[in-house]
């Protein structure tokens, strides 16, 4: 077959490999092992899980990208497909780029109709090997996965020692499992060595691209952020892809937050009966002085709207993590998207606006979670962190998590018993004494006779007394707008990355659109097109975001939704002419790719006949 191939892919440390499995067959741990090994080899690796909304028996994929530039977004195109699932085999084989490889189980001969002349087929008799080696059908199933990892080690040149040492670490305490696993790896390794010219044209080799980085999923980082940020209460309801936020929080709390003396937990986690109850619990706990939070996804946001309006109006700190998935209603629950932006920004009837933060990396998930508690308590309002399935559930290379020992929790304006005791005037819960729109609160039970007030979702005066007076209502709502202004100086500032060339072209992006956007900017630079970028990290928008837009005559925004929701917020809140911001929208549920962004920008520049600032190079394209 290879003879007829017109084109071949030759690469070192630049590949996309896709594993096609059946869910529930134990492939996930083998695939993780594969990605981790590359990471350990010092490579920049980004694995993406593409799984069905079901438990067992349906196609599931695991896509791993490796490159030396450190690009973590999806690249597009597949160099090697590992086809272990007969159900999806036809489609999987079709997807491989010309010149690439198909690794498959050749225990049974391949259906000839699936053959392609422009890719190379590598047959591994996985089922046969397992039949020969194992008695227990479950072991046969399980080790099949480990065997193909072993084979790949030979095929693309993964250090076998790295694999074996990972096995060693993984089975620490269960040492008897080490040998069988290493044996399975070896079975695959030997088979490949003996039957193919190893390595193939696509290989990996050790690098030092990893530095001190870690490989962690965003949801775990959020859970850790909540532990370090001092969260003590979580009310939650299971929903993909947010469930693992609370699972991580619980796991680390159990490890780190149980009082050694009493055995009592320094936290309370309650699985609620639904999302309405989950956010209600968070509001109740926050009102009572605990740092409380919940995590959910789209449907939960819709259900929490009424309570979010209460928290806004009654000014109760509320931290909420929305791990976004695809679509309205149930949509595609195991796909990614950034489509709850408007729903979160304006959640609830009446005039409301909520503070949003948008992490783009696991480290930011950690940092912003801890910060969200500060923000919520400082501003006495809901703070919603918007992340997504892509960041939340995929292992992502990240700077290590950091904690500054000198940092103290910012608990906001709360009168202590002493302060209340010393007060001569009457305490007024909603008095704007500092002129920043933020009033002082008291925790229930603080002082025997002073500082008690009545919290309500109905209109009230500065002393929290019920009123239907229009002027009081207006004064209060205007104060909330003042607080909104104040918030702009509290929230995370945007990250602005200027090409340094005084470019006229700017790209806005946020959250998980970052990796692909920055990669696209690199490509554009190679074409000689200089592009500046601004990563929005919070709503309300800092002045710097507006300035960035002003400073660029052509502005794009990259979003992973249909309706350009962040753009809506920008034009609406910053009084920006919508025509000034060109949306680049990807909403098929898969993470956006650099190519998609690059093409969108290019075609728009062509249409508008924009002459971008070009580098003094003539033919960077040829260099590639």
């Amino acid at each position, binding site marked *: 077959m290879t003879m007829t191939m017109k084109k071949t892919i030759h690469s070192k440390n630049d590949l996309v490999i896709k594993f096609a499995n059946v869910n529930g067959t134990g492939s996930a741990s083998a695939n993780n092992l594969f990605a981790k090994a590359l990471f350990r080899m010092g490579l920049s690796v980004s694995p993406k899980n593409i799984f069905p909304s079901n438990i067992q028996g349906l196609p599931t994929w695991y896509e791993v990208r490796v490159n030396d530039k450190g690009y973590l977004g999806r690249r597009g195109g597949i160099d090697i497909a590992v086809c272990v699932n007969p159900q999806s085999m036809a489609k999987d084989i079709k997807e491989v780029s010309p010149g690439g490889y198909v690794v498959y189980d050749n225990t049974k001969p391949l259906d000839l109709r699936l053959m392609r002349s422009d890719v190379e087929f590598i047959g591994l008799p996985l089922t046969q090997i397992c039949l020969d080696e194992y008695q227990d059908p479950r072991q046969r199933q399980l080790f099949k996965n480990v065997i193909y990892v072993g084979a790949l080690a030979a095929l693309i040149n993964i250090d076998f020692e790295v694999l074996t040492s990972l096995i060693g670490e993984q089975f620490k305490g269960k040492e008897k499992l080490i040998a069988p696993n290493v044996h399975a790896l070896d079975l695959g390794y030997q088979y490949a060595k003996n039957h193919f010219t190893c390595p193939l044209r696509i290989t990996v080799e050790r690098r030092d691209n990893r530095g001190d980085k870690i490989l962690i999923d965003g949801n775990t980082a959020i859970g*850790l952020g909540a532990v370090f940020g001092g969260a003590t209460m979580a009310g939650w309801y299971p929903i993909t892809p947010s469930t693992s936020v609370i699972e991580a929080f619980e796991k680390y709390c159990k490890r780190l937050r149980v009082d050694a003396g009493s055995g009592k937990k320094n*936290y309370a986690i309650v699985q609620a*009966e639904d999302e309405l*109850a989950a956010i209600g619990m968070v*509001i*109740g706990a926050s009102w009572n002085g605990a*740092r409380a939070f919940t995590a959910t996804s789209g449907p939960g946001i819709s259900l929490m709207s009424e309570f979010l309006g209460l928290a806004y109006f009654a000014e109760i700190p509320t931290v909420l993590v929305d791990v976004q998935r695809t679509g309205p209603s149930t949509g595609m629950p195991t796909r990614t998207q950034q489509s709850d932006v408007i729903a979160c920004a304006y959640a609830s009837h009446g005039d409301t606006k909520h503070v949003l933060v948008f992490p783009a990396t696991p480290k930011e998930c950690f940092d912003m979670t801890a910060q969200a508690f500060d923000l919520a308590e400082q501003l006495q309002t809901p703070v919603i962190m918007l992340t997504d399935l892509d960041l939340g559930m995929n292992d992502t290379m990240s700077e290590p998590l950091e904690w500054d020992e000198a940092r103290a929790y910012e608990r906001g304006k709360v009168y202590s018993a002493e302060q209340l005791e010393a007060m001569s005037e009457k305490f007024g819960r909603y008095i704007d004494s500092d002129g920043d729109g933020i009033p002082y609160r008291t925790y229930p*039970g603080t002082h025997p006779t002073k500082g008690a007030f009545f*919290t309500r979702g109905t209109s009230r005066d500065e002393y929290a007394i019920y009123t239907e007076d229009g002027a009081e209502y207006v004064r209060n709502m205007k104060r909330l707008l003042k607080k909104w202004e104040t918030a702009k100086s509290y929230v995370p500032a945007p990250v602005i990355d200027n090409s340094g060339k005084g470019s006229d072209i700017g790209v806005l992006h946020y959250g998980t659109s970052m990796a692909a956007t920055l990669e696209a900017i690199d490509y554009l630079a190679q074409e000689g097109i200089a592009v500046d970028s601004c990563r929005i990290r919070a709503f309300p928008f800092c002045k710097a975001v507006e300035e960035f837009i002003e400073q660029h005559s052509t502005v794009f925004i990259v979003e992973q939704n249909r309706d350009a929701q962040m753009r809506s917020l920008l034009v609406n809140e910053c009084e920006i002419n919508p025509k000034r911001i060109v949306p680049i929208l990807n909403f098929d549920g898969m993470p956006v790719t650099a190519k998609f962004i690059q093409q969108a920008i290019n075609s728009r520049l062509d249409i508008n006949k924009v002459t971008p600032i070009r580098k003094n190079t003539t033919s960077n394209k040829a260099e590639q």
Partner: protein
Amino acid sequence: MSYIKPSFRHPELPVNELGFTQQQYEGSLSTLCAGCGHDSISGAITKAIFELSIAPHNIAKLSGIGCSSKTPTYFLGSSHGFNSVHGRMPSVTTGANAANREMVYIGVSGDGDTASIGMGQFAHAVRRNLNMMYIVMNNGCYGLTKGQDSATSDIGSKSKKGEPNPFEPIDLASVALQLGATFVARSFSGDKAQLVPLIKAAIAHQGFAFIDVISPCVTFNNNPGSTKGYEFVREHLAATGTVDYVPMKQEIKTEYAPGSSTEVTLHDGSVVHLHKTDDKLDVSSRRSALALMQEYKAEGKILTGLLHMEQNSRDLHETIGSSNKALRSLSENELCPGTAILGSINDSFR
């Protein structure tokens, strides 16, 4: 507006063990209809807490939305209160309680607030055995939205519009028992002699203490053909098409001995038959309570009093093993694992 504050106070008011007067447990003026049963319950709560000598600031009072849910403004003015959203008081109280088990939690709700929109949250607060007193001020209707039937409304009972309710009622006390509530009682708003001790017992109970209090709505139980002499006025209003006249009424009071029955005539002329439990009921047996309630119901009577109580009740905190301290009082040292541990966590992801 009914003025539940006494207009005259003796200069030397009696004080409780903590030195507080009963006045210090009162709230602001009620804005409910004169004679509304809910105000009587507020009074009973005030009295019970005064007599229990609980410092007002150690109490949190929470509610949903409705006339009943307004009452926390009208008692315990020195306690923090939270008038949340319709039907969701249980979850807010769950969070508040989870955050600080050192306080006493009083949840006030209505039959609409609990048996309709709040049914799910109610059931799950029961299931978690949340340590709180949960009072439903049960008037069989939606007072604040002007008299629609609620889910506890008796079949055949007529609303202000004169329509008989066609649905079977939900009996919240039975449902609570069935769901495993560890303290269930029923009473009547006008029976302070029964209500005050029940409230005290409910507060003392370590777990979910439910009291279903029948509390007549004077305004929307004014059905045609009832109170004599009122006909002229009613017809007048019916003809003008505007239901906007609410006559001032007296609170309905009753006192009767344990083990005996009484009949209470409501403002609309209808009659409820109450029977007070006595020592013969084995309150430790959930099954016997359920059976007895059904028996009385079959006779057209409503059993009042303490119906069930579990001695060794484990509340949510016991179940999940959470800290004895208020979570907000945990120091940053106790909460934040610090840099060194974070370092080893980082290592585990390399």
